[in-house]
């Protein structure tokens, strides 16, 4: 057997990068999201995300509908925190139509938005657990806690996910009579649930080994990419619309803005965990100050007409800044509607966070920004 002439000691072993397609039908992409990973061995060299699989043209649809009809579509742009999505929309309409929202409606809105933040963060904790590899346990525990909150939403608005409960000017109808007791009951189980998760995941050595130091992004880069919400706060930027530009009743409430230090996956997880404690705190304060009163303004016009003009309203949704840019030329429908979704902006930093990580960690990085694809594509 003659030795091959190439097999000399000086010969360099040639390697080739491998393209791996993840999604769009893949459980760890949290929906229909596709990313093409270029991997060298097990190390990710490049990420090319593809979005648009869930595009339904909600913005354009809303331009053909009057303000009340649009609410249902706003629900569907962010189905895990529909109250927060509705809130931005109705606040934009109120700003254009010059409606003053009564006190009681504002308190109830605050409570519902914070409850929705809790339910959305529970969903994150559960799904993130699956991404990390703790299959089942956290997911089912999260579902258990989320179920209590969603049952409450069903008693109030009648629907479990697409509430269509906020209206320009206030609320569609009043909360049930036992609202306060029911919220307190839910908060009790929620507090227990958060404690469970804290013990289940935060101190767990395997979980920490999997998440610490992964998917780092610096504060400067996070700002440059336009991230918001818990994802940017984990990098140490104290950016919270609730405190910076208080809307609803947040100016009168006492709560902390949770800020992380390291900007890694663990911090993004832990920020959300601590934020849930703050949400519980906020709801408790709201319940004490909730008074009987009107839920829509006294002089509510029968046909809602907006003044010509444009407005940008931003609120703090669970995933970050949810903004509505609305242009009106008068009449009962928006001339142009643009949704600024937190997920889309957070997703931009995906490449920077996952390059030079292991392929298994790329999934965790994607999970840690808590994407909801309906919000990305709208």
């Amino acid at each position, binding site marked *: 057997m003659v030795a091959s002439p190439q097999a000399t000691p000086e010969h360099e072993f040639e390697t080739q990068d491998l393209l791996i397609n993840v999604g769009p039908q893949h459980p760890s992409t949290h929906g229909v999201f596709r990313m093409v990973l270029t991997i060298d061995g097990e190390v990710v060299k490049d990420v090319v995300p593809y979005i648009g699989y869930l595009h339904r043209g909600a913005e354009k649809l809303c331009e053909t*509908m009057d303000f*009340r*009809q*649009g*609410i*249902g*579509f706003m629900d*569907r742009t962010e189905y895990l925190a529909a109250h927060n999505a509705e809130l931005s929309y109705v606040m934009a309409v109120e700003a254009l139509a010059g409606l003053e929202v009564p006190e*009681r409606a504002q308190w109830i809105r605050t409570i519902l938005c914070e409850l929705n933040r809790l339910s959305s963060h529970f969903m994150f904790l559960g799904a993130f657990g699956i991404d990390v590899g703790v299959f089942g*346990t956290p997911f089912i*525990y999260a579902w*258990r806690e989320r*179920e209590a909150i969603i049952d409450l939403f*069903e*008693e*109030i*608005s*009648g*629907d479990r996910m*697409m509430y*269509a409960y906020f*209206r320009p*000017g*206030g*609320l*569609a*109808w*009043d*909360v*049930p*009579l036992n609202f306060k007791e029911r919220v307190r009951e839910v908060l009790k189980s929620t507090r227990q649930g958060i404690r*469970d998760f804290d*013990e*289940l*995941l935060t*101190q*767990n*050595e*395997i*979980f*920490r080994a999997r998440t610490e130091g992964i998917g780092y992004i610096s504060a400067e880069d996070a700002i440059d990419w336009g991230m918001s919400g818990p994802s940017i706060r984990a990098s140490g930027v104290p950016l919270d619309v609730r405190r910076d530009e208080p809307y609803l009743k947040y100016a009168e409430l006492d709560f902390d803005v949770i800020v992380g230090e390291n900007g890694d996956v663990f911090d993004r997880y832990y920020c959300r965990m601590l934020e849930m404690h703050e949400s519980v705190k906020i709801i408790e304060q709201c319940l004490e100050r909730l008074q*009987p*009163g*009107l*839920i*829509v303004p006294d002089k*509510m016009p029968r046909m809602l007409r907006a003044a010509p003009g444009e407005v940008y309203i931003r609120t703090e949704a669970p995933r970050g800044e949810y903004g509505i840019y609305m242009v009106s030329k008068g009449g009962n429908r928006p001339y142009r509607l643009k949704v600024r979704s937190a997920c889309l902006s957070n997703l931009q930093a995906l490449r920077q966070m996952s390059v030079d990580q292991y392929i298994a960690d790329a999934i965790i990085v994607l999970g840690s920004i808590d994407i909801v694809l309906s919000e990305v594509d709208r």
Partner: protein
Amino acid sequence: MKGIAKSLMVTLSTFTRKPVTRDYPNYHRELPERDRAFPLLLWDKEIDEPFCTGCHACERACPVECMTVLMKDNPNHKSNGGDSSRRKIIDKFWIDYARCMRCNICVEVCNFDAIAMNNTWQGHELSVHDRKDLVMDLEQLLVQSHVGAIKEWVPVLGQSNETNE
């Protein structure tokens, strides 16, 4: 190791808690009265005819255009010797449940409280083999209210329940 032991304690402690799951197909939990499944039409038991006059208000307000309404002269009207005060009455009514997005707007715009969201389990368990079967006609929309199978809840819009609190 301490952290893992702690995590295991959490899972262990759930053994002592009551189960939260329900044996669904065998057991149906009670739905709240505000529960919104799909819209259906209500039956006026006093005069024994539907409340709906076919005024097209819901059809026009529906964001997804899932309704089709046709009206006719009411044969039971007083001018014809009947006992109804409705001059016009619903002739044909279709709602495409597959299109409906359950936004409650049809209930809100109705001037006669003739339409309500189904708040029973029948409204949720709608599996069919063909999408065409989800287009409900007048008879299907009225039958539940006619036999008294639903407890009606028509929202009192924009009115606060402060007096009761």
